[in-house]
């Protein structure tokens, strides 16, 4: 079982490394986006899949971080070594504020995060002297660290791939840590966690800030890929899509949000090439997921494996 998993990971890594030379610039660009939005979906799932909190404001951290990097690099010619950390810092500071939403639960938490998201979108949209309004901030360069500079989308693809692998490995440790286990305990029974001595609101607040920091990191990767940022990055649909990516792929896992991002972005790219109402197709996919595969693609894979495994046991 574990060997099978290792083989699968090696094949996936080899495919990811070979992609730019094998598939060309179109696919390289699309898969880069899948990595970046998969990371955003992973940050949403940190709260959704582990702590049971459904946040619809993660586009805020993503966009604030992207805007910070863009404005610093383009207007003030700040180098990447300072601009990128500043972006993560700005998004994380916002998460420290928005994290106060963990005082609420359930539908109230969802509503408050929607409202927060609209505030950020409104600022990006209307404060045009600073944010550039609808046009946003354009001409963001590739990242450069001193003499080491990214000069092509292929190079950037490898940088994002490395970042995703590091984040995935770190996330794996986090999931198994006492803190991560505590989040799963809160999702299962908050009252029991309190009687065991956990200050559950503080636990959830810390998770919210961590999740916001990860979304901010995705925002940094996004703005260097996209070369510009406008209010669309902060908009409600981005938050919703990030959550849906996690759900389609499978919540509470690491690979799930990335699979979900691949499905959502891949399907949209394909369907929109021949069908104008592509958003309706996406809606149908989400409805089908919730109705028939609430555990997402990871859940489907698990069910298939269970069936296949049983069949193998029966035939000696």
């Amino acid at each position: 079982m574990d060997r099978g998993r290792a083989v699968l990971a090696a094949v996936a890594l080899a495919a990811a490394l070979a992609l730019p030379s094998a598939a060309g610039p179109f696919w390289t660009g699309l898969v880069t986006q899948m990595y970046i939005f998969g990371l955003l979906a992973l940050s949403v799932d940190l709260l959704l899949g582990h702590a049971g909190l459904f946040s619809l404001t993660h586009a805020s951290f993503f966009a604030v971080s992207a805007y910070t990097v863009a404005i610093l690099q383009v207007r003030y010619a700040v180098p990447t070594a300072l601009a990128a950390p500043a972006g993560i810092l700005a998004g994380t500071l916002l998460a420290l504020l928005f994290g106060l939403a963990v005082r609420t639960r359930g539908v109230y938490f969802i509503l408050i995060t929607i409202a927060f998201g609209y505030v950020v979108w409104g600022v990006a949209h209307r404060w045009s002297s600073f944010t550039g309004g609808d046009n946003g901030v354009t001409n963001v360069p590739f990242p450069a660290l001193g003499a080491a500079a990214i000069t092509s989308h292929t190079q950037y693809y490898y940088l994002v791939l490395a970042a995703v692998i590091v984040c995935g490995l770190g996330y794996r440790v986090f999931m198994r840590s006492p803190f991560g286990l505590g989040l799963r305990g809160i999702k299962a029974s908050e009252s029991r966690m309190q009687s065991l001595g956990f200050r559950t609101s503080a636990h959830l607040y810390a998770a919210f800030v961590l999740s916001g920091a990860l979304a901010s990191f995705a925002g940094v990767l996004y703005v260097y890929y996209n070369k510009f940022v406008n209010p669309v990055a902060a908009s409600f649909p981005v938050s919703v899509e990030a959550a849906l990516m996690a759900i389609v792929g499978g919540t509470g896992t690491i690979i799930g949000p990335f699979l979900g991002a691949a499905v959502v972005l891949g399907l949209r790219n394909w369907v929109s090439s021949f069908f104008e109402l592509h958003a309706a197709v996406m809606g149908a996919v989400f409805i089908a997921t919730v109705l028939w595969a609430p555990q997402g693609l990871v859940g489907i894979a698990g069910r298939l494996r269970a069936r296949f495994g049983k069949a193998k046991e029966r035939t000696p």
Partner: protein
Amino acid sequence: MSNTALEVGALAKVFGGLAAVDGVSLKVAAGERRVLIGPNGAGKTTLFHCITGTLKPTSGQVTLFGRDVTRLAEYSRTALGMGRTFQITNVFPDLTLGENLALAIVGTDRRKWVLHRPMQAYADVRRQALESLERVGLAGRADQPAKLVSYGERRQLELALALNTRPKVLFLDEPCAGLSPAERQRISQMIGELPRDITLLMIEHDMDVALGLADRVTVLHQGRVILEGSPDEVRANAQVRDVYFGHA
């Protein structure tokens, strides 16, 4: 440290117009085993909730080893030595029995904030969890999810969770509720074997279990204490019989 483990002063809890707990005062000595009895709706569980901090009392004080804890949150009271079980089984169904206990073990220390090391790296936590499962009769079950074990076994897990918060005062809310006679006997034996330095407060309907374990018994009726005494006194008391069996 005073000799009194727990003191409850004129505690009341009002829901809307109903006084579920109506001016209850209790004093439990360190090491004592106190059982609360009373008919359904007497306010026993509400009193427990107010003492452990699950609910905020409308008025009154709760003092733990001489320290006023009335305004403290539940997790702080746990840190000061209150542990509890719930009347309605409250464990983590999606986690394994071992993970359930690991949470109970780190809940009262700083390791609960660690996020750079896997829980399994803490060998002492694993060892303590396995020992604890063995003690409550769940040896060899550490890797099973709690949702797959029987109801009786979940009650045993419930007890193990409470014991791993290092309680000085342990609150057991009907630990035998819904169990078969054999399971009932097993749980009450486990409770009887607890070290005497743990002060025990227990709600129990089963008179044999209750009166067998108790040093002293407090009888609640309609939110008030109607009697406090030794098991024999309670057994002989006409008013208690009245409350339990109705008027002749």
